[in-house]
């Protein structure tokens, strides 16, 4: 129905289902290539094949160490996969086409007035009585933004991967997973109801699992993948319960219907609050917020482009997307919204403190991601949905750039180590880097752009988005529905001020730890080792090319949504472009949260901006002054740290705490109480075997009568005869 009447129905948008289909095709082709290439089918009768086990030993003795260390960022076996060429065309190729289609759809969308989302129903998926779930895709401003980010940045990262993964033995498998990831991610953002979104939601988690554990032969990688999936599933539990509640109370899971029916739920009531909190549990899992952030740093075990695509630019922001997508619910649940903002703010600060003391370059970026995601949640939590999505987009640009840049660095380090056979050294530890500026000038320059962007220095993209979020948090403290609510006994306005302060504090820390990373990596003397240094070099063009594109985007990304207060001062472009774009989707919700007294005066806003810029620059300066790359020594020569530094380096011991309080007890209880206690002990031994033993005992008693001796039988016969006689006598 909708398709035929909607203005988008006759445009490129009607091919929207091709968007996820294209990467799916890529996945199928690459997956087939991968399986085909690696499969050596077994004999027709596998059980008759015992002879091979014997001489397997000797063959394996050589094979084994090789297989074990083929893992780490995978350049130890520089054998090109036989299907590398096809995979290089298919993998990124489908992304290019998808991005083209996304652009076409985008331009089509610009040409029409979007009053309602364009819903493309493919087929009826779960038709069960009152529950009718369609496999349907929904195109509106929000999903369009996400689609552009996913296909655009995804395309760049695919291209980067062609260089980065070129020598990996699992090359087509890598692209298969990556394509599959894009498929699920597009499903996530395009879904027209919570269930389709959930399919994508779990699907990206699955791909994340597969990609983190891409080099599965190393236990740590496989562990990290599994951890990511399981922690995500804790979040998914929340998502599912939220869906159940929605169905129980509204009878539908379609976004459009829920938006229309949301006012049936009492605003601020327990139901909608619970729904939103459960949804947020899902978001916290996917977007690595407290208390479920622990998987993301471990997820760095995957190939670096994966970290860039999944664990920085797209998947981890799905939680932010979901809150924005559910703005119709969050906007009537102020307590839940405040929770989102507060958790986001605390996570932002918490992760930033850990980021201060990490040595692994990717771990720094990982905690930085957690911290920035916290920012986005502040944005969507305070009802500034556009600001949250805006930061999502800019963060996608600069964080993808940072990760790919770090990938480029790691690639160079690996090459150098590989050339000199230094396999023991850690190619990701910043203590082994230093002074790389000389060898990799382009990467250095581009990464500085991203660093300034994330630190919030104008005119880089991060400045605008971060500022908008902090400004919104400050503004909502007065007159908004949030300010009138209470959270944990605190008035909403107080909570919002706390959020704002935490946001500023983490902005300061962000500037410090990012500058620290840049200083240790690119500046100061080189600590790679004299033998390795000559082999350090810039990566090939297929890798630096995407970096340049991302660099440009990080630089100008802020123009997507310039604040009016700046365009009023200097006319550098149109203001609030993204805001207008998202207006049909989140406008109503934003207005509902904002309530009456929202708009800050221009002067207040100018002061806030100045304050933010000052903090960013202060952070950079502090880092520059306090940190001395010159005194660093390489990892192997470093002493273990102590005090607060040690606590930070060990991430506040959160993993250890979870392990001791949740994981171990659950395992122990399952094993010794449930299994050996109840199952084997109580039910099997006592009840089942106990009743058998009782029967056996009775049988033994009966068996005693059957001695086999005629004499005994004669006795029994006579006694029986006596009894019978007695009975006869009585009868007669």
């Amino acid at each position, binding site marked *: 129905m909708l398709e035929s009447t909607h203005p988008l129905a006759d445009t490129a948008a009607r091919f929207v289902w091709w968007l996820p289909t294209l990467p799916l095709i890529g996945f199928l082709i690459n997956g087939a290539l991968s399986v085909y290439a690696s499969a050596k089918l077994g004999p027709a009768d596998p059980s008759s094949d015992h002879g091979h086990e014997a001489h397997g030993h000797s063959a394996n003795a050589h094979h084994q160490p090789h297989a074990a260390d083929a893992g780490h960022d995978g350049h130890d076996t520089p054998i090109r996969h036989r299907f590398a060429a096809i995979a290089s065309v298919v993998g990124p190729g489908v992304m290019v086409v998808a991005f083209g289609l996304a652009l076409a759809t985008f331009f089509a969308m610009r040409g029409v007035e979007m009053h309602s989302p364009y819903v493309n129903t493919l087929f009826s998926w779960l038709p069960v009585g009152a529950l009718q779930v369609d496999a349907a895709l929904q195109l509106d401003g929000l999903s369009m933004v996400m689609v552009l980010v996913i296909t655009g940045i995804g395309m760049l990262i695919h291209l980067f991967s062609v260089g980065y993964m070129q020598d990996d033995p699992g090359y087509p498998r890598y692209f298969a997973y990556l394509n599959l990831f894009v498929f699920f991610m597009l499903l996530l953002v395009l879904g027209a109801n919570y269930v389709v979104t959930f399919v994508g939601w779990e699907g990206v988690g699955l791909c994340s699992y597969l990609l983190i554990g891409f080099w599965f032969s190393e236990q740590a990688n496989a562990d990290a993948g599994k951890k990511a999936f399981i922690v995500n599933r804790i979040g998914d539990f929340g998502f599912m319960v939220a869906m159940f509640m929605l169905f129980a109370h509204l009878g539908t899971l379609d976004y459009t219907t829920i938006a229309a029916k949301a006012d049936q739920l009492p605003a601020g009531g327990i139901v909608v609050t619970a729904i939103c909190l459960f949804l947020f549990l899902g978001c916290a899992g996917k977007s690595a917020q407290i208390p479920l952030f622990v998987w993301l740093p471990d997820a760095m075990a995957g190939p670096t482009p994966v970290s860039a695509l999944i664990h920085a630019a797209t998947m981890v922001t799905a939680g932010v997307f979901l809150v924005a997508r559910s703005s119709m619910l969050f906007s009537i649940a102020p307590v839940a919204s405040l929770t989102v903002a507060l958790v986001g703010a605390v996570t932002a600060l918490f992760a930033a403190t850990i980021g201060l003391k990490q040595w692994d370059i990717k771990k720094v970026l990982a905690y930085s991601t957690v911290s920035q995601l916290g920012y986005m949640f502040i944005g969507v939590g305070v009802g500034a949905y556009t600001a949250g999505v805006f930061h999502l987009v800019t963060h996608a640009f600069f964080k993808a750039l940072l990760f790919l840049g770090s990938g480029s660095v790691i690639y160079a380090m690996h090459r150098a180590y590989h050339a000199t056979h230094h396999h023991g050294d850690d190619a990701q530890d910043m203590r082994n880097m230093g002074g790389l500026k000389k060898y990799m000038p382009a990467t250095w320059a581009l990464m500085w752009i991203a660093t300034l962007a994330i630190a919030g220095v104008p005119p880089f993209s991060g400045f605008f988005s971060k500022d908008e979020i902090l400004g919104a948090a400050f503004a909502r403290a007065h007159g908004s529905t949030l300010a009138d609510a209470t959270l944990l006994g605190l008035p909403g306005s107080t909570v919002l001020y706390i959020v704002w302060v935490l946001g500023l504090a983490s902005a300061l820390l962000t500037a410090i730890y990012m500058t620290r990373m840049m200083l240790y990596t690119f500046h100061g003397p080189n600590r790679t080792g004299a033998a390795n240094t000559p082999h350090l070099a810039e990566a090939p063009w297929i890798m630096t090319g995407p970096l340049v594109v991302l660099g440009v985007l990080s630089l100008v990304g802020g123009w997507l949504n310039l604040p009016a207060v700046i365009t009023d001062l200097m006319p550098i472009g149109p203001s609030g472009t993204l805001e207008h774009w998202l207006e049909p989707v989140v406008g109503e919700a934003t207005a509902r949260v904002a309530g009456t007294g929202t708009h800050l005066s221009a002067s207040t806003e100018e002061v806030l901006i100045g304050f933010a810029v000052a903090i960013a620059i202060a952070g950079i300066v502090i880092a520059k002054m306090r940190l001395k790359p010159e005194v660093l020594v390489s990892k192997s020569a470093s002493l273990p740290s102590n005090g607060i530094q040690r606590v930070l380096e060990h991430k506040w011991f959160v993993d250890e705490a979870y392990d001791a309080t949740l994981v171990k007890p659950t395992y122990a209880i399952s094993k010794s109480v449930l299994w050996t206690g109840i199952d084997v002990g109580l039910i099997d031994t006592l009840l089942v075997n106990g009743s058998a033993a009782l029967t056996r005992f009775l049988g033994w008693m009966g068996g005693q009568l059957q001695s086999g001796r005629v004499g005994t039988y004669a006795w029994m016969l006579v006694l029986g*005869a*006596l009894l019978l006689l007695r009975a006869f006598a009585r009868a*007669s």
Partner: protein
Amino acid sequence: MENEFYPLFYQFNFYLFGLIALVSAIVFVTRKSPVAAALWLVMVMFALAALYVMLGAEFVGMMQILVYAGAIMVVFLFVVMLLNLGHPSELNDIRGKWGRVAAGLVGLALVAELLALGRSSVNTNLVLPAAPAGDIAQGTAGIIGPIAGPLFKEYLLAFELTSVLLLVAIIGAVVLAKKRSAVAVDTETPHAR
């Protein structure tokens, strides 16, 4: 027959042979030697045969002597000799004191029960027909007529079946008592080859 001495004679003989049977049975059951026991049992059977005659069952009495005393007990004695068990058993053939006491108690109970049952279910006050033996003895069908009648009319099938039974018993006895063939010997000597 008309002689009034006759019933008295019968009665006297009945008690005499009854006593002989009883005493012989007790002696039989207490003998250690199987041969002695068997001979005392023969004695019981003879006495019983006489009792049968006293009770007017002359044919059965004859059969008793022929079949039991004559055939069956001979077989017993034959087996005893065959297995060379003629000496008093060196083993604890008779159970110990408690076994005997228990058996005695059971026996008492059994007698009591049997007598009680007999008294309650058989009309012992019934006077027996005056001269039963004479009637039977002098009847048109002779002594065995009254037995032969039912045996070959109502119980013909059973009668025929007993012949089958005997045949089976003969074969069974032969098979069971036969010495095991070479196969059986082989199994007892594991390393025959």
